């Protein structure tokens, strides 16, 4: 039931959305300041900068609130740069209202020669080839180039949650015309339970205005931890080259207002364009290990994320963790020529025919209780069952083992067993 809107709450909501543009809160009356503080906190937008703004007002009530509450910023958007355009200015300005409150990790593609341009006003770390070489060394088979450069960001982050968005994506609009805060939605997805063992026909039962339907077993209603949140794309959907070539005018404009848990033992193509995950629990399972021989610079010339996604899903199913799909949407810019891409060999497309039956029948042993253990088991199975079919799989299996080693040495403490 909605109470009628009046001016003050609407103004406060608007202020929360525009915090990045506010530089001084002292003119606000106390009660409004406190209300703004609480709304900011609830919206997850209390960053260091904003906190300093509140402190600068000098009001006692603000101090006592800060002391009572335990405030932590635990999100890390990771942004890989794309090789065709080193100027991130328009991208970052478009995302500024949503990203400015978080720590960003920008990883420059090894193949990108130009200097990257980043606008002011963000709290970020940039990693380029020298940094990568220094931290990772040259003894590993992992190459952080192309779309795979983002995994370096996952490796060096020390935060609990990671959000990753391709840099040809902008904030999308929802069905009411409002800008979608993709980060906030991903965090909501990751911090509410998933329900992989039984399908709820009203989709996410933990969202406002919904619940478990009649016939949903009560013992399954507490759900499991969600560790991966897969978002969708407006405008240029993540189609492969043949599909996009066949339907050059097709653009995705449908806003499907749902988040749902992908059921256990159900596989799906997990796109790397717009995802978020719990690094503490499944960090090592997102891996830059499959590299096509004709790996290209457009999304439909790569399968690295699809491979990584298959591994993550199988591992999540084994560890009884949840994967969600649906909201949030991002707006993906038009780019590339699908027909030109068709001329390259359809290596990735052919590969899926082998890969899917392999993952569908893969079962991991009971003793694998952490993401690293599981990755090693998957790698061994890949080598054993797929290694003889195509040399790319043998290379991938080795890369997976290298990745686990890298994760253990550079990635900080090992991942926690399935929460």
């Amino acid at each position: 039931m909605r109470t009628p809107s009046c001016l003050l709450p609407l103004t406060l909501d608007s202020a929360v959305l525009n915090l990045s543009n506010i530089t001084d809160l002292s003119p606000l009356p106390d009660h409004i300041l406190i209300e703004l503080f609480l709304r900011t906190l609830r919206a997850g937008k209390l960053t260091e900068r904003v906190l300093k703004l509140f402190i600068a007002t000098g009001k006692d009530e603000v101090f006592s609130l800060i002391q009572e509450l335990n405030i932590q910023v635990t999100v890390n958007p990771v942004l890989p740069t794309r090789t065709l355009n080193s100027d991130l200015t328009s991208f970052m300005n478009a995302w500024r209202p949503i990203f400015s409150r978080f720590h960003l990790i920008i990883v420059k593609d090894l193949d990108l020669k130009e200097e990257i341009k980043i606008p002011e006003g963000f709290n970020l770390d940039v990693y380029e080839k020298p940094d990568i070489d220094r931290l990772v060394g040259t003894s590993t088979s992992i190459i952080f180039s192309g779309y795979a450069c983002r995994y370096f960001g996952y490796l060096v982050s020390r935060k609990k949650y990671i959000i990753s968005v391709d840099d040809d994506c902008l904030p999308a609009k929802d069905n009411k015309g409002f800008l979608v805060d993709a980060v906030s939605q991903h965090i909501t997805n990751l911090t509410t339970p998933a329900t992989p063992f039984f399908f709820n026909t009203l989709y996410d039962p933990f969202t406002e205005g919904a619940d478990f339907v009649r016939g949903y077993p009560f013992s399954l209603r507490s759900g499991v931890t969600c560790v991966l949140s897969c978002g969708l794309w407006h405008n240029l959907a993540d189609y492969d080259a043949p599909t996009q070539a066949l339907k050059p005018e097709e653009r995705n404009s449908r806003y499907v207002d749902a988040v749902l848990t992908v059921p256990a033992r159900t596989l799906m193509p997990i796109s790397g364009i717009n995802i978020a995950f719990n690094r503490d629990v499944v960090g090592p399972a997102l891996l830059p290990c499959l590299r096509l021989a004709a790996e290209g610079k457009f999304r439909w010339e790569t399968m690295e994320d699809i491979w990584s996604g298959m591994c993550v899903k199988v591992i999540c199913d084994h560890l009884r963790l949840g994967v969600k799909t649906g909201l949030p949407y991002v707006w993906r810019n038009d780019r590339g020529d699908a027909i030109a891409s068709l001329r390259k060999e359809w290596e990735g497309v052919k590969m899926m025919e082998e890969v899917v039956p392999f993952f569908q029948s893969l079962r991991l042993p009971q003793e694998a209780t952490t993401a690293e253990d599981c990755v090693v088991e998957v790698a061994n199975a890949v080598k054993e069952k797929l290694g003889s079919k195509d040399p790319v799989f043998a290379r991938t299996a080795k890369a997976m083992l290298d990745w686990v080693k890298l994760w253990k040495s550079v990635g900080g403490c090992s991942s926690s067993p399935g929460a």
Partner: protein
Amino acid sequence: MAQPSTISPVPLLRDELDIVIPTIRNLDFLEMWRPFFQPYHLIIVQDGDPSKTIKVPEGFDYELYNRNDINRILGPKSSCISFKDSACRCFGYMVSKKKYIYTIDDDCFVAKDPSGKDINALEQHIKNLLSPSTPFFFNTLYDPYRNGADFVRGYPFSLREGAPTAVSHGLWLNIPDYDAPTQLVKPLERNTRYVDAIMTIPKGTLFPMCGMNLAFNRELIGPAMYFGLMGDGQPIGRYDDMWAGWCTKVICDHLGLGVKTGLPYIWHSKASNPFVNLKKEYKGIYWQEELIPFFQSVTLPKDCTTVQQCYIEISKQVKAKLSKVDDYFSKLADAMVTWIEAWDELNPSGAKSAEVPNGASK
């Protein structure tokens, strides 16, 4: 890969579809549905007192069955059809001669989509049933055969033809289909979210099938749609559609058929009394904790290639494994067999039998 989109009209299927409606009161709600339902033949299953006359609005082509008719037609086998519970609707499935069935409750009205347009639920169900499902691999853009969507990158091409769709499960705006405990905790909650998607429920995943707004291909899956022993004289109610849904899903998974859920929405107007519901559901809430693991672990032998064979096999396993939960399941297993016998009697296999051409599961 999915066909390029063409705007061709959805076939009416007027002579191939029956609308089955269980009722105990009246059928006034049909007035609102007239623009969409009038071309179709209705099968009305009258529950409760057979001496009461159910008034059907003018202009509809229908056949009506009350308890006396059911007893007359089925003889001793009528014991498998529930009394004083909308489960009796499955008699309508059995007695129909059409390929497709749409069933709807008499408190369900025409809903509006976000643009304010009336939703022709029947047309959407027909679209769902006539286009393939994708149970073997999940498509993140939901139904790939819909206008404006397709299979995403990474979806294996060998799976893009999909599987035949056996069931189309629609949803409800306004009063959501909650169980009694949830109704008691949230009596005022209304479903206002219009989720513009149809999706296939993946193979190996069970779901709660609601019978309020449901369509299915009777030739592909009809005999599995037995709504069980509910209501008068039975220890349980409001689990009829759930039971049918679990049996149906297991059989669909075995035979390589698809089950879709999502659009269309109808407007569910009447909230039933949660205290009455609690009494009916009480045992079910406990029993479903046993039932779900049971259905999740049911395996059907390769030589079960028809729906009837699969169903009889499930009834054997129900008797063997669930009788210890309660004697009710032993009776239910018997009723399941009676149902199949009655079905085969009314639908002799000179007519189309419910066999899938490439029956074995993947």
